[in-house]
């Protein structure tokens, strides 16, 4: 077991972990943060996407032992974030979720995308969603939700529009 200290959703945490424990298991089992879901555990489906130092990453293939001093943020830590709230509302309005299992990973990926790429259009959204699998929606509602949220002031203002 190795002790690791990092920031989770703005608060410091210090935990003992086995080197082999991946971040998603640590978050879900030891820290009770279950908004992060596991869909494949080999880095393909995107359901476990979270933020490490502000950038999207797969928590199923990130090792907490290697995250000493880093900043980790999950959907739990973004529930009050105006941009995330705009995305959540857009997901509801555009029926961007059915079973809801892939949704947290989708939201984290899209929030990052909308902050990073002001030139957002449907083709870009689809391309950038390539690493997040959804088995229910056929992506249509998700794409529409992303385009809807991109027009929300919380993103539009950030782009200086």
């Amino acid at each position, binding site marked *: 077991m190795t002790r690791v200290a990092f920031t989770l959703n703005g608060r410091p945490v210090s935990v003992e972990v086995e080197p082999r424990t991946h971040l998603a298991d640590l978050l879900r089992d030891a820290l009770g943060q279950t908004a992060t879901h596991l869909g494949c555990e080999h880095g393909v489906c995107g359901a476990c996407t979270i933020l490490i130092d502000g950038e999207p990453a797969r928590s199923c*293939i990130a090792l907490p032992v290697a995250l000493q001093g880093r900043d980790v943020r999950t959907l739990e830590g973004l529930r009050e974030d105006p941009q995330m709230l705009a995305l959540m509302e857009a997901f509801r309005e555009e029926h961007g979720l059915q079973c809801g299992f892939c949704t947290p990973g989708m939201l984290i990926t899209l929030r990052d995308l909308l902050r990073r790429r002001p030139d957002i259009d449907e083709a870009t959204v689809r391309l950038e969603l390539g690493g997040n699998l959804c088995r229910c929606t056929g992506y249509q509602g998700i794409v529409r939700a992303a385009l809807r949220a991109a027009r929300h002031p919380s993103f539009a203002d950030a782009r200086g529009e």
Partner: protein
Amino acid sequence: MKPASFDYYRARDLDVATAVLAEHEGAARILAGGQSLVPMLNLRLAPVAMLVDVGDIAELRQGARDGDGVRIGACVTHAAIEDGAVPDATRGLLGRVAAGIAYRAIRTRGTIGGSLALADPAAEWPVTMLALDATVRVHGPHGKRDIAMRDMVLGAYTTAVEEAEIVESIAVPALSAGARHGVFKVCRKTGEYAASIGVAVSDREAGRHALALGGLTGGPARLGRVERRLSEIEAWSAETGEAIREAAVADLAERDDEMSEDERGLHAATAVRTVKDMIAP
């Protein structure tokens, strides 16, 4: 789907890292971004006793101008290259290749050195660096040495990097202002490993023409006959395409006479489309 137990060592510098690697005699693996290694660990496909984490070694995370070219640290992420966070001397080729690797959440963690050291036959960096005549610098128990990309990849997942050596950086030569490049990948879906991938560079000023193909058994390859044609091409036409195809088929047959007709056709098509992407995008 959880890994078997392993030990973990966070290396502060390369000397210590190589010492730990040497000590474990092949049972230790280097952890850089972990985007290929950790999935293999989760699937228990890669038995490992010790992970040596080089992610905190600052010098590996930097990219800087190096003469005309650029030297990129092994732990620079694909995303950093995509975002232009390291200098570019390739007229945008590196950024374009980086942006096409897997998905953003992989690119933010995956590293250029890790990709080169793993040498997945379908990966972008080995074929790109081969086309650019880049040089890999490795750090080992006996110091540093440089490996030209032409000598780097020996086969699928096999490189000239020795057991206790660590990829430290890669030196990418500059392309001239008028140089052009092309990239073409055959993937069944976005972000998936390519069945075939081509990178072309044409730098008339420097008199350098390159076409490298990946996705081949045995690692990426340069196609000499195609490259000789590149210097002659002015504009794209159907005839140009056929000439490239013929040259590519001959190059591929020479390299691997057991290649199936299907593979040869596919890779030759990739060669044609890569050149076309360069000349008539």
